[in-house]
């Protein structure tokens, strides 16, 4: 079984009718029309990556002759995902409650006014008095301060508000893309988790990586924001 699996799979992946899953070209439009559900336009990169993760895993499990790894991994992870979401309900409710109080008290407006020059530059499409701005600022502060479990509720709230500005489309708005790019590469002043890990491993100086981490994350985030700005213009409205 082994050599056949290895040789056959690459052919299967690049077999013509599979291609519309990965990319669009005039050549493959012919096939696309035959597949119900396949749409015109750019194929989501997420589709490709998701498919790659699962298919490569399955192939390797077959190669090792241990198919049960896949079954177990899939089922356990699905259960784990629901467990995570259920645990998130508590954290989420708590932080959203606190956020509502801060909002009613006008604290978020004060924060938004203080950081207006900065936000105007990053999110030109969001009015500075809009609730989305408040949630964005809270999310970024939570990320920077390393309050990991507070960042997700604020971030999801920010997405909800931005989706209102996006008029409920299925396509991500520019502000959303910028926001997520900032989130995925976000500056953290103090990586508490890593410091804890180093401390428990008996490091002589657990915090010596704070400086290097700050450098790496700042470079990553700055470059990401620049690329985001370029892509915003290049990608157009399409």
């Amino acid at each position, binding site marked *: 079984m082994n050599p056949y699996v290895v040789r056959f799979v690459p052919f299967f992946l690049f077999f013509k009718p599979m291609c519309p899953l990965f990319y669009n070209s005039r050549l493959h439009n012919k096939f696309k029309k035959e597949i119900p559900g396949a749409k015109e336009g750019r194929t989501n990169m997420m589709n490709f990556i998701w498919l790659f*993760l*699962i298919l*490569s*895993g399955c192939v*390797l*499990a077959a190669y090792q002759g241990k198919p049960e*790894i*896949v079954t177990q991994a*899939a089922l356990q*992870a699905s259960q784990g*995902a*629901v467990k*995570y*979401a259920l645990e998130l309900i*508590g954290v*989420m*409710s*708590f932080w*959203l*409650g*606190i956020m*509502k*109080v*801060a*909002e009613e*008290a006008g*604290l978020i407006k004060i924060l938004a006014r203080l950081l207006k020059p900065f936000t105007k530059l990053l999110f030109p499409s969001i009015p500075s008095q809009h609730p989305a701005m408040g949630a964005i600022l809270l999310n970024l502060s939570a*990320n920077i301060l*390393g*309050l990991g479990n*507070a960042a997700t509720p604020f971030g*999801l*709230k920010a997405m909800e508000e931005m*989706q209102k500005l996006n008029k*409920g489309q*299925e*396509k*991500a708005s520019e502000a*959303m*893309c910028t926001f*997520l*790019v900032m989130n*995925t590469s976000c500056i953290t002043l*103090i990586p*508490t988790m*890593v410091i804890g*890990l180093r401390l428990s*491993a008996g*490091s002589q*100086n657990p*915090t010596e*990586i704070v400086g*290097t*981490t700050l450098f*790496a*994350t700042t470079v*990553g*985030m700055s470059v990401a924001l620049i*690329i985001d700005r370029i*892509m915003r213009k290049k990608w157009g409205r399409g």
Partner: protein
Amino acid sequence: MIQAVQQVSRWAVPVLIFFILLFAALRGVKVYECFIKGAEEGFSLAVRIIPYLVAMMMAVSIFRQTGVLQLFTKYGENIFEALSIPPDIIPLALMRPFSGGGALGITAEIINTHGPDSFLGRLASTMQGSTDTTFFILTVYFGSVGIKKYRYSVAVGLLADLISFIAAIYICNLVFM
């Protein structure tokens, strides 16, 4: 330094809660009713992201458990060494965008086998702290509001990760070598 860090993370949340609630109460906000109104949304928001969480975590788990990463490291060893990247760090670099828990596990393993104060330990620590779990954030955040077209954000997010890793390798070579 360690103590300062620990103090900040110990005090941040209670201080925040205290001052937000006090400030609101002084401004005449009905704090209790207001908190309830906000907290109500927590449930629906958390439930709405379940399908996206399941899809992502399931795929990552299959990928991780079957050992595709080890394959990358095994066959790419020569290439990475030629680029003066320690091959032991590659699984971490590949796992970081997909799974926060998985990456933390790899970091812990590197720190424990090579020692926290070795070059590899420091590099792994720097990498772990310098980016976030790109795919997790994208699927969950976009999923929660029903966005189907992610446009360029996946590409930019991954590119940011790559640049952070290169920056981490560069700065660690500079500082710790």
